[in-house]
């Protein structure tokens, strides 16, 4: 039982950046825009977050700086695809390339730097609670932050008037125009909020999870998040379980290594890509058939937008 809980807490810790990124991209896509630049936004978030934590010594400032950096980069996506009308996939890739370049360029001075990160909760009062105490204490502030944001997003998106308009701009831009609202404005909001979340996701990775900075450290997590949005059928509630699929694959790879299994760590390292990819394939057909996809996105997915 405690072994299972241990695996679950490692999975949650690993999954948190992907969880936040999936949540952010879900919000973006529900307004009818796809942003493949998540990976780049996570990278600038990770670099800016790490730099801010290093300079200020305050990991909370780091998370804030990362989120803002992600949002700043997402403005490029808004400019290219909303204002200039560039293909959304190409525009997202431009964001990805620029984020990768900027974070690698400015990040060169951050390599090998040390930060302290958040204080551990393992010696707090909560750790002495029966059964779940140890589990709760293993988790870090970014997990709790992700949890709060997840609840807030899902309720706001699915249960409020503003959430209804948000979703409507992804379902039918025409209907929104008839109501006298501008779909472009809601999409801008969708892109910026997505940028904020994915920047935060990157900072959670570098400030709280690895506590180091390496160029290209997100290693495909941002793109996985874009895929996982589809697996989650654009439902914010499902962002947690789908991110846990990634987290469990990664945690399992780590666990098998530490158990001294005679399997190459590089081979095990393929699990976090293979498992979500397979789940993506299994759920793809179902997610399209059941009409979960925001209608305004279907053109992009047919490759014609």
């Amino acid at each position, binding site marked *: 039982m405690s072994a299972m809980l241990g695996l679950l807490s490692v999975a949650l810790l690993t999954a948190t950046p992907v969880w936040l990124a999936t949540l952010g991209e879900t919000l973006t896509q529900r307004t009818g825009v796809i942003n*493949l630049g998540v990976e780049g936004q996570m990278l600038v978030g990770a670099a800016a977050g790490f730099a801010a934590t290093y300079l200020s010594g305050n990991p909370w400032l780091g998370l804030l700086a990362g989120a803002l950096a992600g949002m700043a980069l997402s403005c*490029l996506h808004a*400019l*290219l695809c909303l204002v*200039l*009308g*560039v*293909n959304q*996939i*190409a*525009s997202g*890739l*431009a964001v990805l*390339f*620029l984020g*990768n*370049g*900027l974070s*690698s*360029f400015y*990040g*060169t001075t951050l390599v090998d730097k040390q930060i302290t990160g958040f204080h551990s909760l393992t010696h707090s009062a909560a750790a002495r609670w029966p059964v779940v105490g140890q589990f709760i204490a293993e988790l870090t502030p970014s997990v709790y932050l992700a949890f709060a944001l997840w609840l807030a997003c899902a309720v706001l998106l699915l249960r409020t008037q503003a959430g209804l308009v948000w979703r409507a701009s992804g379902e039918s831009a025409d209907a929104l125009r008839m109501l006298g609202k501008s779909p472009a404005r809601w999409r801008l909001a969708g892109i910026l909020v997505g940028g904020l979340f994915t920047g935060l996701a990157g900072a959670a990775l570098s400030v709280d999870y690895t506590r180091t900075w390496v*160029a290209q450290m997100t*290693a*495909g997590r941002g*793109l*996985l998040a*874009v*895929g996982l949005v*589809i697996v989650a059928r654009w439902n914010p509630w499902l962002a947690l379980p789908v991110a846990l699929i990634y987290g469990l694959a990664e945690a399992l790879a780590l666990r098998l290594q530490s158990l001294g299994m005679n399997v*190459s760590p*590089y*081979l095990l*390292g*393929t699990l976090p*890509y*293979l498992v*979500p*990819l397979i789940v*993506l*394939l299994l759920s*793809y*057909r179902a997610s*399209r058939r059941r009409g979960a996809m925001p209608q305004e996105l279907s053109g992009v*997915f*047919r*490759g*014609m937008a």
Partner: protein
Amino acid sequence: MKNSPILTLLADRLMVPLLGTTVFIALAAAFFHFNGYPPGKIFVQILKGAFGDAFSITTTLGKTLPILLCALATALPARMGLISVGAEGQLYFGALAGTAAVLAHPEASAWLMLPAMLALALLGGALWGAIPGVLRAALGVNETIVTILLNYLAIKLVEYAVYGPWKDPSNLGWPATMAFPGTAQFPAIACDGVASNWALPFAVVLALALFVLVEKSRLGSALALLRSNPRVARLAGIRYAPHCIAVMALAGMLAGLAGIVQAANVQNHLQPDLSSGYGYVGFLVAWLAGQSFLRIIPLALVMGGLLSAADALQLFAQLPYANTLVLQALLFISVLGVGAARSKWRRA
């Protein structure tokens, strides 16, 4: 000469590239200036580092080859509307498969070795390209996401091989296979101190062949119809699935060829840093060329020069290598933005 149709056409054709380049140079100059490097001096250094002497031209040509092939591997699927970013992974997997032939029979004669190595590399690349093709055709899975994820997977597999079963113990911990024998290398060409190998002219011929195949045959119009209107294509008897899979497999072959040349001739080993992001650079070149196989050739040379100059800049100006990543992104953004703005303005 007012309103001469030829001049109008010329201005029309040149406007996007010229304006795009201008925007790019402005952005790049701003980037260098902002970081405390004099833009003028850096630009001169880039030109020198790219084409300044025989050594830099040799480096440039060495980088041009994989970029050219990866750009072709991007442009071909783009002709039927597929946005593949998978050349990087296809390059890695092609090299992995080709290396298997070399390691199986390192003593084989060149007549056996080269064809076997090449065949396996092409097959490997084709397989890695066909996977997203099949998924797209059978399930409708977005090929962009799958190709990028497969890139990471292919790199992991190469790492597994060179850190594990294929690692040569005599390398003293350095993760790489044994050195490729001379029989497993593409014949060299040299001229006035500039060195390259026969794979480069072969790649140019491939680009021309693709041009003829796609622009001058029915295949091209079939692909164009599949891109613009799959429903009409189906009515015309052009089936999506076989085209999608074949085009992706063929693209994979092109990138796989780049991978094996890189391993055999450039690095002489299979090692984890096989590619300096050539797959992604190739993607950019294909888009800058408007997916035209002919325009890809000179643009690949320019981009090869830019990468070769980045090495030199790192040495002489202490400019981090990552500046090329920023420059490439700025170039992509400029051309995308200007192109889209022009068509928007024209529609209005």
